[in-house]
């Protein structure tokens, strides 16, 4: 029952988007006044699979905003060489099954030229093989775990790309800055042991700290469902480290920051991607000041492309974008860049599109200049940011 109503909602939503997009195109061609204009070219269908319901619905809705804004701006600027870009957005319900179903639908039924998504890494590992066997290129826009591109657990994955900065790149950069700029020599490493994102981040931190020659005085595991972390923080502070590292999602991170601030204000706390959300600042308040993390994007980046994106997003949705919105928005522009270079974009010549995505270099996005490396992974600047006066401020 719930599923059906969701599906109906989805269809209504898709119709509304399609209608809105149609309206946009008519307006543009009317203004340009060219009679043979864009109407002659068939639409370019791009699939988007994101978590609009389930645990991932913290991220999916802003990703949806990001891609919809990008599609609107792309079509306003003439689409894909004159053809209109149409999004097919499906909910993966934050589950592997949901992701596989959506990928099957989009590759066989909608016949999209490429897919952005899915939101969560677990889902991605299950759904990407569907696109791989259908030879439909995928750009992952929010997966940070290992095994998403390059060497994939399920075998060949030469149609899969990742535009979201992985923790294995961001964390070593963060650790290096901590060592060189913040003079950190010893740390206590805290992590949520029952969460894949957090424990993966923990392993990456361990390795990066060893490489950088920083001493780990103690490792403290906790649970992502812990309702209070005061005891863990007390134990961590007893070791008197130079910094506390917390590999967790935003919820536990807030508990850690508040507790550290209560017991030892000014103590340096370093985190992973879980720290890169405005919720850290609003919920932890003054306790968030000074927290350091490595990010793919930050709101205050003065780069003109980013400023333009932030302003357009705010105008459309009346709220600041987050990293997920920025990555989703950038993902569509990265795809657009490759689509424009691919001779026939609408027929199912997916291998040609894949080749062009591989050639992506220096695309200007809110994330900065963007390229893919040889293993199809993101190649962009890592912004190591520190929270100062309630805003993420770059340290590098």
């Amino acid at each position: 029952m719930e599923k059906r109503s969701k599906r109906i909602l989805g269809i209504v939503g898709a119709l509304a988007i399609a209608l809105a997009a149609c309206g946009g195109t008519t307006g543009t061609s009317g203004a340009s006044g060219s009679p043979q204009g864009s109407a002659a070219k068939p639409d370019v269908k791009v699939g988007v699979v994101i978590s609009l319901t389930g645990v991932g619905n913290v991220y999916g809705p802003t990703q949806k905003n990001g891609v919809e804004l990008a599609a609107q701006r792309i079509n306003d600027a003439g689409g894909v060489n004159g053809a209109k870009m149409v999004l097919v957005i499906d909910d993966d319900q934050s589950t592997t099954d949901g992701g596989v179903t959506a990928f099957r639908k989009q590759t066989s039924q909608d016949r999209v030229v490429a897919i952005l998504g899915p939101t969560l890494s677990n889902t991605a590992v299950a759904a990407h093989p569907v696109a791989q066997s259908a030879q439909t290129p995928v750009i992952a826009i929010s997966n940070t775990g290992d095994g998403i591109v390059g060497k994939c657990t399920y075998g060949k994955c030469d149609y899969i790309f990742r535009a979201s900065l992985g923790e294995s790149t961001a964390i070593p950069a963060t650790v290096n800055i901590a060592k060189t700029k913040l003079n950190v020599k010893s740390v206590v490493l805290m992590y949520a042991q029952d969460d894949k994102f957090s424990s993966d981040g923990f392993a990456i931190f361990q390795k990066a700290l060893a490489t950088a020659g920083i001493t780990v005085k103690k490792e403290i595991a906790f649970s992502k469902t812990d309702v209070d972390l005061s005891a863990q923080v007390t134990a961590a502070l007893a070791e008197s480290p130079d910094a506390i590292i917390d590999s967790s999602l935003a919820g536990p991170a807030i508990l850690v920051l508040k507790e550290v601030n209560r017991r030892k204000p000014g103590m340096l706390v370093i985190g992973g991607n879980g720290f890169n959300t405005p919720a850290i600042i609003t919920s932890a308040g003054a306790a968030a000041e000074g927290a350091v993390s490595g990010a793919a994007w930050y709101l205050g980046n003065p780069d003109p492309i980013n400023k333009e994106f932030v302003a357009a997003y705010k105008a459309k949705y009346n709220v600041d974008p987050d990293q997920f919105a920025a990555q989703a928005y950038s993902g569509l522009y990265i795809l657009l860049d490759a689509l424009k270079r691919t001779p026939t974009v609408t027929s199912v010549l997916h291998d040609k599109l894949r080749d062009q995505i591989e050639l992506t270099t220096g695309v200007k996005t809110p994330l900065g200049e963007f390229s893919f490396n040889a293993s199809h992974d993101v190649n962009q600047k890592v912004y190591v940011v520190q929270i100062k006066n309630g805003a993420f401020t770059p340290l590098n």
Partner: protein
Amino acid sequence: MADQIYNAIFIGSIYALFALGFTLVFSVLDILNLAHPALFTLGAFTALFAMQQGMPAAAAVIVAFVVCGIAGVLLDRIAFAPLRRRNAPPLSAMISSIGVSLIVIRLIQLKYGPDLQAYPAGTLPAAVFPIGGLLVDTLRSVIIGLAVVLMLALTYLVRRTQLGRELRALAENPRAARILGIDVERAIAATFFLSAGLGGVAGVLYGFATNSPFSQMGLAFELKAFAVMIVGGMGSIPGAVLGAYLLSFGEIASLAFLPSELRDAFAFGLLFVVLLVRPTGILGQRAVDRV
């Protein structure tokens, strides 16, 4: 060390407040009310809403108690009373409560989204002061104090008042209670009001302590409250309180003396040992003597 004991008391108080409401409904009606975590969340968000309208924190706690209490009564009317009238097995009531829980959480998400929220800046006491070597903060101390007061008040109410006597009669034998002229529906409504009100207050206090209420915040407590309830003795109110502190002290002791990865194994292992020694729980008694 003193710091860690203070931490254990704080966490135990929150567990206990949560488990109390859970236990109350179970002891009187034999229903596992799985909507309790949703009412907990509702409490935190009711206070958030009230404080966003400019209400002080203390008043918001009272508003949350009343709103959640009423929500609890409605919950009974909608989800449990119809099943009770048809003599449905307790399992149906449990499923029904899961449904209500999903609806309440979804409604909260519709209004506030799934993200972490924060109470208006400057509305919560933030002072921290050292007493000897111990760092005490106002908010946590108030929370501990309030939790203890509420536990004592509930115990007094159940043991010493007319309503308490009715509840105990109802727990013992609903039919006999009815024959003796007790207004059973009224007593049930009171049970739900108290249970949900306490759950709501627990939600507000926990929301205050973390200042990051979110729509799924109650779920983390569910499993622990179960454990606390069973170890304390199903349906025993002092038992639930005792179980809650036992769990929190167990968790923190293991953190101090063992590798942190083993914490849950140790804490729940401890509870398991308690059950081996006393299968009915620490204060568990025959069903007749419950409450």
